[in-house]
C-alpha cells in the first residue's frame, strides 16, 4: 500500500501538473482537450481489470465485469472521438 503522505504528494504534484497543462491551451482546443482528458481517465479500466481478476464471488465478478466494460467503453470511445476531432484541425497553410 502506498504510504498516505506519499500519496498526498503524488496527488498535489499531479494536480499542479493538470492545472499548468491546461492553462496554456487555446480556446479552440478546449473541446478536444476535454475529450482528450476524458479519454485519459479511461485508465480506470486498469483498476477494473485488476478488481475483476481478484473476484471470486458471483457478485464480485458481476461488479468487476460491469467496471471493465464501462472502463473499456470510456477509453475506446474517448479515443475515437478525440482523434476524429483533432484530425480536422488544419491551418490554412496545410491546405493544398
Amino acid at each position, binding site marked *: *500500500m502506498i504510504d498516505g503522505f506519499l*500519496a498526498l504528494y503524488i*496527488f498535489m504534484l*499531479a*494536480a499542479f501538473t*493538470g*492545472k499548468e*497543462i*491546461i492553462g496554456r491551451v*487555446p*480556446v*479552440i*482546443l*478546449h*473541446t*478536444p*482537450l*476535454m*475529450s*482528450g*482528458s*476524458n479519454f*485519459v*481517465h479511461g*485508465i*480506470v*479500466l*486498469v*483498476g477494473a*481489470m*485488476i*478488481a475483476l*481478476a481478484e473476484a471470486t*464471488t458471483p*457478485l*464480485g465478478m458481476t*461488479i468487476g465485469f*460491469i*467496471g*471493465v*466494460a*464501462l472502463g*473499456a*467503453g*470510456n*477509453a*475506446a*470511445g*474517448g*479515443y475515437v*472521438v478525440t*482523434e*476524429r*476531432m*483533432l*484530425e*480536422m484541425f488544419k*491551418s*490554412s497553410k*496545410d491546405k493544398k
Partner: protein
Amino acid sequence: MATEEMLIWIAKASYFLAAVLFILGIKRMASPVTARKGIVQAGIGMVVATLATFAITGGHNIGLILAGIAIGVIPTWLWGKKVAMTDMPQMVALFNGMGGGSAAAIGAFELFKITDPGHPLPPMVTIGLAVLGSLIGSVSMTGSIIAWAKLDGRMDKRFNFPGQQVFNFLILAAAIVAGLALVAWNVQPWLIVAFFALALAFGILMTLPIGGADMPVVISLFNALTGLAVAFEGYVMNIPALIIAGTVVGAAGTFLTQLMAKAMNRPISGVLFSNFGGGGSGEAIAGSQKSIEASDAASLLYMADKVIIVPGYGMAVAQAQHKIWELSQALIKAGKEVKFAIHPVAGRMPGHMNVLLAEAGVPYDLIADMDDINPEFKTCDVAIVIGANDVVNPAAKTDKSSPIYGMPILNVVDSRQTIVIKRGKGTGFAGIENALFYADNTRLLYADGKEAANQLISELKGIEGGGGRARPQACVRGVDGGG
C-alpha cells in the same frame, strides 16, 4: 516465482511509462500543430497500461476480462467512428459517464470485498477514499447520462418541481450519511446498496433541472469529477498511474470548468442550483424586428469589405457549417476580409463551434476568440449572426435587470450592419428578448441556417454574374423599413 515478480515489475514500469505518456500527450494537445500526435501518444500509453495489466492479473478470470473489454470497446468504437461532429458533446458526456461508472464499480467491488467473512478490515482512509470515489463516480455516471439524453434531444429541456433544491439536498445529505456510516460504523451489504442508490439518484436529480446552454459547464464538471473518482479508487487499488492520470484530469477539468463559468459570468453554483430565465426577464425592448430577404442580404454582403461571422448552437442544429464555409469562400474570393468570431460558450461545449468549423474545413487562423475580435466589430461592415442569440445580446451590458447582465458578449452591435439568420422569432435559451435583433441596423433573415447560406451563395453569384441587381435600392429600402 521469479518470473511472477518480474512480470509485476514490468507491469509497474509500464504504468509509469503510461503516466508519462498521458501527461506528454495532454501537453501536446495544447497546440493545434501537435494535438493529433498528443492523443496518439496518450493512446499508446493506454494500450501499454492495459497489456501490462494482463501480466499482473495472472490469467484469473481472463475470459471475463476479455469479454468485458470487447463489450466495452466494440460498440463505442464503432459508434464514435460514425457519429456526426455536431453530436460530439453528448458523446463526450456519455463516455465520461462510463468512466465514472467504472470508478464507482471499483469502489463497490472493494466495499463488498470487505463484507466477506474473514476479510481483514482495511484502514479507515482506504474505506473513506473508496466511498468518496464511489460517491463522485456514481454522481458523474448518472449525471452524465442525463446530460447525454438532454443534448441528444431524448429528454425535454428542464424538469422542475417545487422544493426541488431542498429535496436534492436531502438526497445528497442522505448519501453522505450512508457513506460516513460505511466508513465509521460498519460495512454492511444493505448499507452499501442504499449508499449507491442514493448517490446514483442524486446524479440524476442534480442534472434534471439544468438546461442545455449550461451543459458545457456541467459536462466539464462531470469530467473533472470522474477524474477525481478514478484518482481515489487508484489509491484504494494501489495503482499510482490511476492516481496521477485521475488527478491530472481532475485538476485540468476543474480549471476548465472555472474558465467556462467565468466566460458565462455565472458562478458554478449558479449553474448547478439556479435556472436561466428563472429570474426577471429584463426590460421590454422598444422598436420592431426588421426582416430582410436573401437577395437584399446578399447585396449588403456584396458591398461589404469586412465580414465577421458569428456562429452559435443554431448552426450546429442546422448542420450549416459546410454551407457557411462555402459562403465565406465565395466572399473571400470576391476580395472581402472574412473572420469567424467565437464566444467561449457558444454551442454546447467550449470550443464546440471551432470543432464544427474545422470539420467544414475552415482554417483555424480565420477563427478569432472573443477578446481578439471584439474591437474589430467597429470596423466591420456586415456581421452575420447564425444561430447565436444570448452571446450577442447587448442587454448583458446595458440592462441591469436582465438575467444575463454582466455576461461577456460579442460586440456585434458595434458592427455597421448585422444580418441575423434565424428560424423564427423565438427567444434564446435564456428566454429573454435580444436587443440586438431590434437595433436599427439589424436585419433578420428568417430561414434555416443551411438554406439561408445556400440562398446567399446563389444570390451572390447572381450579383457577380449579372453586375448587381438594384443593390443600392435594396439597402435603402432596408433602412427605411427600420423606422
